[in-house]
């Protein structure tokens, strides 16, 4: 029997992997992928809570769909920015993008 706890553990694991990826990956595209993992951790949470706590309502599922749509748009934007940076600096290495400072 799969309980709410299982889903939450899965979600926490995904979130953790995502955070780890964001903080450690050097490749900008990798960071973007890690971000997607965090989004999906949230989605799993949403759907799981919706199913177990309010089975009659579909708010959680609805939000998950919205998040997927927004995440797609966000990925497009992120990739576009990375592409622009690549054209300018010939690299997608996050360590070399350090102009956001004093």
């Amino acid at each position: 029997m799969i309980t709410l706890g299982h889903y939450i553990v899965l979600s926490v694991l995904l979130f953790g992997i995502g955070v780890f990826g964001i903080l450690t990956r050097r490749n900008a595209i990798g960071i973007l992928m890690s971000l997607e993992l965090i989004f999906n951790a949230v989605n799993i949470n949403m759907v799981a809570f919706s199913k177990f706590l309010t089975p009659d309502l579909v708010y959680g599922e609805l939000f998950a769909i919205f998040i997927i749509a927004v995440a797609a748009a966000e990925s497009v934007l992120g990739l576009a920015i990375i592409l622009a940076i690549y054209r300018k600096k010939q690299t997608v290495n996050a360590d070399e993008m350090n102009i956001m400072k004093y």
Partner: protein
Amino acid sequence: MEVGDLNIILLGYLIPFLPLLAFIIIVSMTKKFRLTSAIISISAIFISFLLSLILLYFRLKDTNAHNFIEYNLPWLSLGNFNLNVGILINNLTAIMLIVVTTVSLLVQIYSIGYMHGDDGFSRFFAFISLFSFSMLGIVVSNNLLQLYIFWELVGLCSYLLIGFWYHKPEASDAAKKAFVVTRFGDFGFLLGILILTYNAGTFNFIEIEHYLKAGNMDAGLLTIVILLLFCGAVGKSGQFPLHVWLPDAMEGPTPVSALIHAATMVAAGVFMVARLFDIFSLSSDALKIIAYIGGFTAIFSATIALTQDDIKRVLAYSTLSQLGYMMLALGVSGYTAGMFHLYTHAFFKALLFLCAGSVIHAMHTNNIWEMGGLHKKMPITSITFLIAAFAISGIFPLSGFWSKDEILVNVYESGNKILYYAAVITAFLTAFYMFRLYFVTFTGNLKDEHAHESPAVMTVPLILLALLSIISGFVGIPGTEKSIYNFLYTGEHPHEVAMNLKIAISSNIVALSGILFAFLIYGLKLIKAETMKKITGPFYVISKNKYFIDEIYLFLIRKIFFAITEFVKWFDRHIVDGAVNLVAFLCRWAGAKLRLTINGNVQSYALIIFSGMILIIAVFAIYNPEALRIFGGR
């Protein structure tokens, strides 16, 4: 409301409004057409004058002097506190409207001649119209705030007109001096108004009066409030010690001196006290102080007037002295006498100034010792000046006699001997310096052959004012039923004014001896002026230098005031600014250190954000486990 009342209300709004309209038209349209501007301004004040006459007629028809008509036009509403543009028409207003419009009308006609060929001709008439509007506004106001606004407006007009020839440094300095000195008084006035309104919850004269009569205010506080209100009058009416601005204000064009600094604006202080007399009379202590200040100003300025060389300055000190007389009358509860003197004084003092203007116009100098023998060349000016001089000296039966005599009777009946003798001595001095002026200027050897009589546009107002100086006193003959006293008096029972023959005759003798004295010295030259100078010695020097008041003020400002400001400046620069700079320095120092942590790497930023979040959760978990519920905990 009756139809008559409605008419009066309409008149009350129209009379001040017309000069304002003239001002707007001149400023916006006819600035380039000089004569048109003058005609617009004069027609406006002429219509106002006619309307004032109608209003006076309405008031005369009403046999009950207590009646008044009040009307409020809502202006601002702040919560349940309402500000109104109101008018309060009573007998006092009616008289004052006549005084202001008459003098303003005649002075404006005179100005066509006097200001002829001046570059600022249109500007002059615009300012005079604005002034007439403001002054009439003071007269009809029914609440303190409105009164104060118009009060400041006349101050502004005074400033603009004293500095009319602003290219002369003396004129612009005098304008600034007038503005700053009166500000001292106005500050007290504003404080008084605010304290009154804070307590009574209204600006309205009559409501405040009811509030105070119900005994709602502590007597000590009431005295202070009344003295604060009186501060305004001290500034505007040039009472000691704020009198220093008025003689300097003579730098303005002479018609301005006649209108603003003799007849109307400087009398606004007296008028204000008279208008609020029901409030002022609630504190006998305050009235006593007012009487002493008035009496002192009267004799003090008269002694200065004795030795001045500038024809307009003599008249300015004379104005101060007469205003002191009015204040003295108000201070001894001679409310009607004070107002009566204001009314007669407006005519003869305006006349004196306009005559002086006529002389200056002919001679191009203000120094009386460069004049002389002008009677032959300028007969009309000379004769009208003589009439005014007799009137101000209080010679029977000219207007000044009736009003001055009434003040003397009031002071005498108050039982204060010091003030009475001060008033009598002032009467002597007044007669002396006026006739010193007359003899030196108009008799003796002719010193300038080019002098000529002024054009008719200037002499006709002189003649009309001379006529008024003669007849305007007849409304105040004591003992008659329909005298100005009963008209103005608002007390309980009819105001009986008996003629005090002893005082009347003695005051005339005093005045005549003053004239005789002046005649002996300056007319016949039997007594040499030089000898008098030697006999009086130090007194002459003191009087000539105006008691060194200006020098004392300068000393106080330079040595004491500047020393204080020097300290304040140091405190501001080092302590206040230092504190501000310290904060700025700390911020910059902290920023310089902290910015090193910002290395530009996005991932390190993300790490900081995550660590921060975890830190917050940790803090919550330790101090407030309940709050963890927002993160989904139990």
